[in-house]
């Protein structure tokens, strides 16, 4: 019996390793190897046509001096203003939605629609809405308020606010669903106990709802920051060639330009590594700070 069991176990182990092998292989082939290769190319000057030349840390020195790197990094961080704005709006929406009245699931669906719409289609649609002369937004501003709207995507001062606006429109539905799930998991006994103690609506919100939702705030911030560091598609459509005075270019857009337009593979890899490390450390810091403010039960 004992022998038979080890025989079965040996077979089982073989199956287990076979079952976990593909993702591990995938990680080695498409994750680890490219990552190490990327470090290596970041020390080279290479256009993929002539053979690469070793330049040491030149690419890294160069990127720190490059005005466009600084600018695209600034733009990327600037666009993160949309994260807290989006959180406030999504939480407000979730609170409004968190009731069983007729038509509420229809409303949830409609607010969620922009989340699933292809980002390229959404960007094209907003490009038309934000057109200076004939776009819907400026027409409305003029007809209703007598305001002559700016050239949203053509004026360096307005490109980033426009991108934030579009980001809010297309993103709040997603976080709304997360907050809604969070609100529904808060036990009603907390509120009942607070009501007996004479707490008012605001006190219940700020002392019960908000603290109990901190795990969701944390998730939304962490994912939002990682996503914002990597934003590209909407920039590609809405800020062609980086937009006026490079005011709309993000870091990934900059990397894309250098790698796939100018074929500066070494330099682009160096910038990619700078971004990768930045994302890693910012996320790490967020996790370190989490136990100071995220509620765990």
């Amino acid at each position, binding site marked *: 019996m004992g022998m038979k069991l080890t025989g079965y176990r040996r077979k089982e182990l073989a199956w287990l390793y076979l079952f976990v092998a593909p993702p591990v292989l*995938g990680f080695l082939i498409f994750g680890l190897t490219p990552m190490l290769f990327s470090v290596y190319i970041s020390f080279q000057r290479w256009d993929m046509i002539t053979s690469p030349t070793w330049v040491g840390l030149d690419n890294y020195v160069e990127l720190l001096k490059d005005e466009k790197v600084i600018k695209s990094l600034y733009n990327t961080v600037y666009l993160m203003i949309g994260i807290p704005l989006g959180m406030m709006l999504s939480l407000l929406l979730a609170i409004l939605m968190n009731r069983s009245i007729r038509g509420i699931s229809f409303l949830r669906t409609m607010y969620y629609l922009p989340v699933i719409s292809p980002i390229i289609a959404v960007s094209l649609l907003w490009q038309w809405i934000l057109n200076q002369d004939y776009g819907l937004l400026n027409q409305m501003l003029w007809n209703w308020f007598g305001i002559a709207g700016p050239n949203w995507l053509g004026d360096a001062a307005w490109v980033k606010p426009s991108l934030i606006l579009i980001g809010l429109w297309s993103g709040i539905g997603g976080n709304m669903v997360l907050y809604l799930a969070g609100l529904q998991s808060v036990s009603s006994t907390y509120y009942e106990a607070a009501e007996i103690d004479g707490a008012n609506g605001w006190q219940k919100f700020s002392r019960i709802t908000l603290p109990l939702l901190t795990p969701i705030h944390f998730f939304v911030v962490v994912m939002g920051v990682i996503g914002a560091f990597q934003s590209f598609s909407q920039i590609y459509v809405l800020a062609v060639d980086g937009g006026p005075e490079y005011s709309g270019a993000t870091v990934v857009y900059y990397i894309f330009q250098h790698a796939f337009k100018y074929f500066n593979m070494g330099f682009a890899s160096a910038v990619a590594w700078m971004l990768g490390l930045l994302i890693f450390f910012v996320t790490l810091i967020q996790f370190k700070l989490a136990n100071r403010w995220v509620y765990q039960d």
Partner: protein
Amino acid sequence: MKYKKLADYWALLLLLSGLIFMIAPFIWTISTSLKSQRNIFEIPPKWLPDPLTYSNYVDVWQQVPLLKGFMNSLIIVVVVLTVGLLISAMSAYAFGKFEFPLKGVLFLGLLGTMMIPYSVVMIPQFIGFSWLNWVDTLLPLIIPGLFGNIVVIFFIRQFISSALPNDLIEAAKIDGCSFPRIFWTIAMPVMKPALAAQAALGFMGIWNDFLGPLIYLHTPEKQTIQVLIASMQAMYIGQSNYPIIMAAAIIAMIPVILVFFFCQRYFIESLAISGIKG
């Protein structure tokens, strides 16, 4: 009780006014796509196209290989989802239900891949794939997806570690059921809802993906629908042909919106689960 009712009415009122801002862009897009080009410059703008024309849809379908774009996107989605989900389900089952040497290290290593941004690996991957002569084919967009996806593995592992009782596996073992058969006949049916949720999310992710297809696909006939409609901008915006661009945008949106309406339950569920657990 009465107060509660009143609050509900206020909430409804606020949500309905917000709804205008959420759906106006869609309606405006549909409206523009049904206008002829000279009618889009009217002041004040008209919501109802007059005269109404479908010619933009016909034109864009004839001038841009949209059907090819759909097929290319569809090939990637179908292959990656069927193979990738099966592979992910297999390793999620192994990680979630069994103990074996190196399990912890392997799983942590895989979780680490979530931390690697695509921008770091896209350049070396491009170099590798161009060395294989795979540029301008769908292969670089399909092959990496066949090895499973750690986010999916993590999600399904969480799901089955509670949804699939160990006793069931033990009983099947005693009955002489082989390892792959237990997986296929017992674990897979239990995983179905989690797999459906991930399939719905995966469809959206792959269908809407842009950066990867943009890097690899250069010939219009080989591009995915997203790359095709993005390239329309360069072709038509110079002549301010917004109606044709809007028609293309609507065409690109229709499949995802259809899938969303049919699989809505799975979306909301999976998002909620991943949000709370994450």
